[in-house]
């Protein structure tokens, strides 16, 4: 039983990781809570649904599932990235120019969140939709736990994305520029890095990650318009537990949160899941605000 709990924790943890990775990439450069990240994730799931289920049932219901996904995957990645960039350009950038305080960003972000979530509800309706086709296959038995193909896919994709992102930030020129802006935007602009360009890149990459997370989740569970709220909350919590803005921290935080929640569900009851997550958050905020990675928080922020 313990093995199964750990495996489940690892899987939900890797989804949290993907969301908090995207959130962290964006947070590093802009330094406010991009709450609307959650609806980009929900949007990714719904776009995948449209491209894999709705659209094909109009044209040709016999089209191969593999081919559908070949179209859906790049489309979701590109569209999610584009939506992220659009949100930044339309809403955040004018606020940034005015040097608005964080609370204004946060509220504007809530506005975007509410707008897009209800747009999804208007288009698709409030009911749950499912992407899974056919019967549920029995999973593999590994170390006394059951794991399905889709869950293995989720684990593998998250690991790959994490490693890719880590290498990107450490090795490439753009990644280094992103780190520079994260450390000190003013100094970065002095050496000729355009912070606006970096912020653009951060929103594109971060939002694409959210899109992928949404797509992966849609394979595993039902999708509904309100799914973004829970996701972004867990993403932010994972980020803070790990150390806000840190990329390895986002991963540690995500896995830690996933494991803790599933252990809690096992020992207490499923209803207390969110309560456990927030209790862990508050403990971290009060005792170790730098998170697992002990990130230095800027004096004026905490």
């Amino acid at each position, binding site marked *: 039983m313990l093995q199964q709990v750990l495996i489940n924790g690892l899987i939900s943890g890797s989804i949290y990781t993907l969301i908090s990775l995207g959130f962290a990439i964006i947070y590093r450069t802009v330094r*406010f*809570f991009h709450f609307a990240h959650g609806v980009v994730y929900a949007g990714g799931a719904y776009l995948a649904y449209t491209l894999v289920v709705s659209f094909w049932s109009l044209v040709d219901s016999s089209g191969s599932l593999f081919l559908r996904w070949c179209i859906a995957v790049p489309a979701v990645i590109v569209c999610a990235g584009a939506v992220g960039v659009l949100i930044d350009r339309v*809403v955040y950038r*004018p*606020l940034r120019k005015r040097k*608005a*305080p*964080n*609370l*204004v960003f*946060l*509220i*504007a972000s*809530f*506005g*975007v*969140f*509410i*707008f*897009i*979530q*209800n*747009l999804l*509800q*208007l288009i698709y*309706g*409030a009911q749950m939709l499912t992407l899974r086709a056919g019967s549920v296959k029995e999973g593999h038995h590994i170390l006394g736990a059951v794991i399905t193909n889709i869950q293995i896919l989720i684990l593998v994709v998250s690991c790959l994305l994490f490693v890719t992102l880590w290498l990107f930030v450490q090795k490439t020129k753009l990644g280094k520029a992103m780190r520079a802006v994260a450390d000190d935007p003013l100094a970065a602009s002095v050496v000729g890095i355009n912070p606006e360009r970096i912020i653009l890149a951060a929103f594109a990459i971060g939002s694409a990650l959210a899109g992928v997370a949404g797509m992966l989740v849609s394979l595993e569970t039902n999708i509904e318009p309100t799914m973004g*709220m829970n996701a972004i*909350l867990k993403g*932010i919590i994972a980020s*803070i537990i790990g150390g806000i803005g840190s990329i390895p921290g986002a991963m540690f935080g995500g896995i830690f949160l996933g494991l803790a929640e599933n252990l809690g569900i096992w020992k207490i*009851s499923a*209803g*207390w899941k*969110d*309560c456990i*997550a*927030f*209790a862990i*958050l*508050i403990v971290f*905020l*009060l005792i170790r*605000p730098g998170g697992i990675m002990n990130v230095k928080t800027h004096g*004026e*922020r*905490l």
Partner: protein
Amino acid sequence: MTSVFSVAKPIMEYFLHILVITGIYVILTLSLNLVVGYTGLAALGHAAFSCVGAYTSSLLALKYGLSPWLGLLIGACVAAVLGAVVGAPSLRLKGDYLALATFGLGVIVYSIAKNWVAVTRGPMGLPGIPGFSIFGGEISAVWSYLILVAVFVVLTYLVMHRIVSSPFGRILRAIRDDEIAALAMGKNVNKYKIIVFVVGAFFAGIAGSLYAHYITFIDPSSFTVMESIAILLMVVFGGMGSLGGSFVGAAILVIFPEMLRFLGMPSSVAAPLRQMIYGLLLIVLMLKRPQGVLGTYKWK
């Protein structure tokens, strides 16, 4: 609910009902404005306090037959105690982190209301909550309840007005504008912050209790974190640090969406559309007038 309105004088009853709800939100908005608008503490868990107030006075009335008047007072006091409990550790947090921690409190209180089935009956809610009675007669008609709520609104307004126009209120604004300067002037900033949390929570508790005894049914879904966000939006919309703004903010954000009901759209379209307009309104407000409709406070 629909049966009540479809019998007699439906339009008038409905109109009065909306006014009662608006009044309750005005109390919530005024009390949150003290915390967020005047003291500059980004608190995002206001619904938690009204939840505690509502459940306390409902349970006291249902299980022990306590008078709702007494229940209202005890509920508000329990909410105030929670405010102190939350306020104390929150002093170490600022800005976004305080917002998140108080948000967390909202989730935790909601989870307790939902999962502690033995006491709160969980998602089934508490039905049959008795109403207030005065001089032996129960206040059940909507118009009489409106008067009751109006009395509490005026009371809340007077208390808030007294607080913010006193030297005490000046210190709160000093904390908002420059906490370090306030500290340097020898003010015990932490003490003031806790008092503000307690007062805010107390009035939120009153609002929750008024709501419970009016609707006569409560369940956790009335006190979600989205509710806390909605109250914050009313504060920001009307104007941070403006008591008049709290009336405007609560009134517009409660009444305006209701008006959309009369456009004759099916509810599957109207409900999300209403929310979309809400979201759009917020974005535009933040872009064009972040100080709110009546606010004068310039954001740092």
